[in-house]
């Protein structure tokens, strides 16, 4: 996981974080407590007409991710740790993974250890879970990701954001 400070809302600075921000602040601990929190779940798709249409047209024999919720710590206080439990969907980052019934999908969360340095960081580099699809017509799994933000007492004000790569691989099984 890399953490970076995002630019301010000044239009000259804030178009894309990648262009401006260095990876110099790595103060957030991602406990990386990945958990398959529910075997199946449904969320209302109210207002998601376009999404439903797209899905209906190409959903056969597909593999998809839906990032239902980012892992958002919100306002945090310097010198204090904020932990979000992966098992509580209201707080955790959450995803729905769908695939064809019978397909075997492996979910892998990679937290880049080389970028994850700092006094508070102790995440495992990779967590793997194996999701089996048995439902019909599509199977759905919800994956939750929790973590902890631990800014030190001298952390500068601003918006900080990290990126975690998640992989869903069809094994062929």
């Amino acid at each position: 996981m890399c953490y970076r400070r995002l630019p301010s809302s000044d239009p000259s600075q804030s178009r894309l974080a990648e262009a401006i921000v260095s990876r110099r602040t790595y103060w957030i601990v991602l406990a990386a407590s990945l958990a398959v929190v529910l075997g199946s779940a449904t969320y209302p798709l109210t207002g998601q007409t376009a999404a439903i249409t797209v899905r209906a047209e190409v959903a056969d024999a597909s593999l998809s991710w839906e990032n239902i919720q980012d892992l958002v710590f919100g306002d945090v206080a310097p010198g204090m740790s904020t932990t979000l439990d992966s098992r509580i969907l209201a707080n955790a980052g959450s995803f729905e993974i769908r695939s064809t019934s019978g397909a075997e999908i492996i979910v892998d969360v990679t937290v880049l250890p080389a970028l994850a340095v700092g006094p508070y960081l102790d995440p495992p580099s990779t967590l793997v879970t194996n999701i089996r699809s048995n439902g019909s017509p599509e199977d759905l799994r919800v994956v939750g990701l929790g973590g902890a933000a631990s800014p030190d007492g001298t952390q500068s004000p601003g918006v900080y954001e990290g990126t975690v790569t998640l992989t869903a691989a069809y094994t062929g099984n």
Partner: protein
Amino acid sequence: MSSKGFLRYLLKAVAMAAVAVALLPVISSAVLVAPHAVFIDHRTRTGQITLANSGTEAEEVQVELKFGYPATDSLGNPYVELIDEPGPDDRSAAEWIRAYPTRVRLEPGQRQVVRLLARPPAELADGEYWSRIIVTAQRVREAIVADTGLRAGITFRQRTIISATYRKGEVQTGVELTDLRGAVEGDSLVAWIGLDRGGNAAYLGSVHFEIVNENDDVAREWRTPMAVYHSINRRMAFPLTGLVPGTYRVRFELSTMREDIPQVNVLPAPPIVRSFAIQIG
């Protein structure tokens, strides 16, 4: 209702509505890749996948091909082995299948067809060649609003890996059962399955387990897909909760029946049937 009471009621209703809206999930990021298994024939040398953004924000999507296949680790767990530099004996198609386009920006609701064009070497022998198609999506981020305090969050880059199979000429497959063991561990049946692939193409099949009691009634059954590209040694665990103590037989059948792949793409092979006894309780 007094005006004060009504105001309190109104505030409460507004607060509840705000909470309800906040609890509604917003699918901000969603990328679909179809199909999850691509088969390309040597005669046409083309294939395609469809990318779709069913989220509410634009996505930047990258498509790449890398040699890979499913394997098992020392604990019997499956994983996808990705190999950056395949050797001459590897049946890799990753170097000579190209995707067009490889980068695309998908607006919400938008679809994009990615063409796959194969340019295999002239001396390519008959058989099957493999690759994995890796689709990486990341939400397009616009202006970030800063404030005077500290705010923190994590966004996600999503990688979807699907299989690509290229078939030329005469292709055949088969498997040899090198190991089959099963035992009751706690409240589960733990089975180990060893398989070696034969022929010049991957074996795509499934395993069917049945637990039958002394009256030959099926007490439990499970079907799980099984792909063998080289050799695998797979551990599987199935729950036995609720079965009364006693002696049971486990029937094992490996066949080329698949739920998730059109049967036209599954190569035939003879089934393998075995059975063994287990004691529960």
